[in-house]
């Protein structure tokens, strides 16, 4: 039979020589190999203290964004929920009352905004669908939880800290991914 590739290697079925039969020599060779590994650099990193960098296209937990004055951008239009292939997003809209202009950017806002992180597939379509730049995916992933209901993230979990009241936390939450994206735009 003609070989399809040239990578096939014939199996050697020679009877073992005396040195091979003694087996000791091969054991010694093996032990030298393990001894070398003893001093090799370890592949493991000490995880919580040390972290590997994320890929630039990593998509993690969602963040509900605010504008420069700290007002929520979301208008509860529902396009993200519509775009979501996993149907993980639900929201309830409410109308802005007089005097709340510093809290919500437009006349309509999301009174309730929930993402079920067990359903979410982190595809990022909500981010693409959003006309107001109100939702984006950050670089953190969902932490573990003891209960299923703990994975339903409400507004208090998703909303970014206000850039006016808490700028440090705000910039930390913005993260590299968002910043890189804005740079390229």
């Amino acid at each position, binding site marked *: 039979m003609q070989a399809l590739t040239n990578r096939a290697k014939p199996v050697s079925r020679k009877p073992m020589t005396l040195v091979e039969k003694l087996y000791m020599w091969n054991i010694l060779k*093996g*032990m030298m*190999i*393990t001894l070398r*590994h003893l*001093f090799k650099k*370890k*592949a493991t990193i*000490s995880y919580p203290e040390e972290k590997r960098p994320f890929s630039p296209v990593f998509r993690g937990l969602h963040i509900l964004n605010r504008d420069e004055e700290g007002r929520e951008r979301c208008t509860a239009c529902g396009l993200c929920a519509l775009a979501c292939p996993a149907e993980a997003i639900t929201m309830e809209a409410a109308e802005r009352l007089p005097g709340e202009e510093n809290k919500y950017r437009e006349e309509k806002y999301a009174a309730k905004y929930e993402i079920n992180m067990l359903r979410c597939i982190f595809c990022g379509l909500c981010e693409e669908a959003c006309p107001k730049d109100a939702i984006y995916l950050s670089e953190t992933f969902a932490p573990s939880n003891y209960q299923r209901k703990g994975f339903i993230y409400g507004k208090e979990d998703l909303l970014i800290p206000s850039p006016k009241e808490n700028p440090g936390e705000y910039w930390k939450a913005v993260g590299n991914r968002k910043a890189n994206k804005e740079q390229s735009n």
Partner: protein
Amino acid sequence: MHSALLAIDLFFVIEKLVLIVAIVSISLVIAMYETYAERKVAAFIQDRRGPNRAGPFGLLQPLADGVKLFMKEEIIPNTSNRFLFILGPCLAMLAAMMTSAVVPWGGTIDFFGRQVNLQIADINIGILYVFGVVSMGVYGIMIGGWASNNKFSLMAALRGASQVISYELPMGLSLIALLMLTGSLKMSEIVAQQIDGWYNVLYQPLGFFIFLVCAFAECNRTPFDLPEAENELNFGYHQEYSSMKLGFYLFAEYINMFISSVIMATLFFGGYDIPFVNDASLSGLGNWLALLQGLSLIIKVCIFIFVFMWVRWTIPRFRYDQLMNLGWKTLIPLALVNMVVTAAIVLLKSNGWKF
């Protein structure tokens, strides 16, 4: 009556009790840290880091493991023989601890004018005692495996028993050659000879090698850990055990490893003798000398323990027929040849032949 009571030297009893407590606790602590070292060595050989979360460098890991084992639920299977089920791990532990009684751990200490020998019992059949106790260790495995009333445990126990018996023969034969050279079964005497002359491993390299291989087998360590072959027997003889009874079995293995390292160091590597130094010239150090000697024994033992672990994480397990072939068809003939050659040389030498 009174005179008979007074004849017992109270200080002697106290001295021996203190020694026993000290040696037992040292072996336990060393066995504890052997588990830690084993995990570290395994990790390093496999390019990992090993336990490093509990305490600095993970040094408290054995304590955490111990606490975990104690906290576990203790399960005794319904169909098991309760008495034997509990007796099994006790015997394994007892046999493992008893061997340390005849090992000389160092020279003598001058304790307020009293010469304290750092050896619990300096009996003149030391090596025979060690052999007797070591072969008792297999009862722990057999009783535990049988009492579990589980076919896998029973099979593992049978394997363990036949393996230990098969490997005790070449072990004994390799020692006979050694004993012909030393002319004494007394451990302290053997060490004393090595302090004055060369280490026995130079006279008996093959004997030492056979002893080492058999020690691996006696301790049920890889490549001879067939009683615990988890891919064939689920878990081996301690499958039904939980909590500290399981811990005792695992612990007994580590103590066995420690003790067999001690015996190898004592018989072949000069025991507590400090290498490259004439111990007699250091007698000015007084009690510190005995301590240094103990330390040098411990260092030798640590090297042996490392070899145990190194081999374990290098060589895969033997098949059962390979194990028996190696024991009966290779090691026993080798040991016999070694014995005959040694005997011939000893005989020629005693008849005045010069070499």
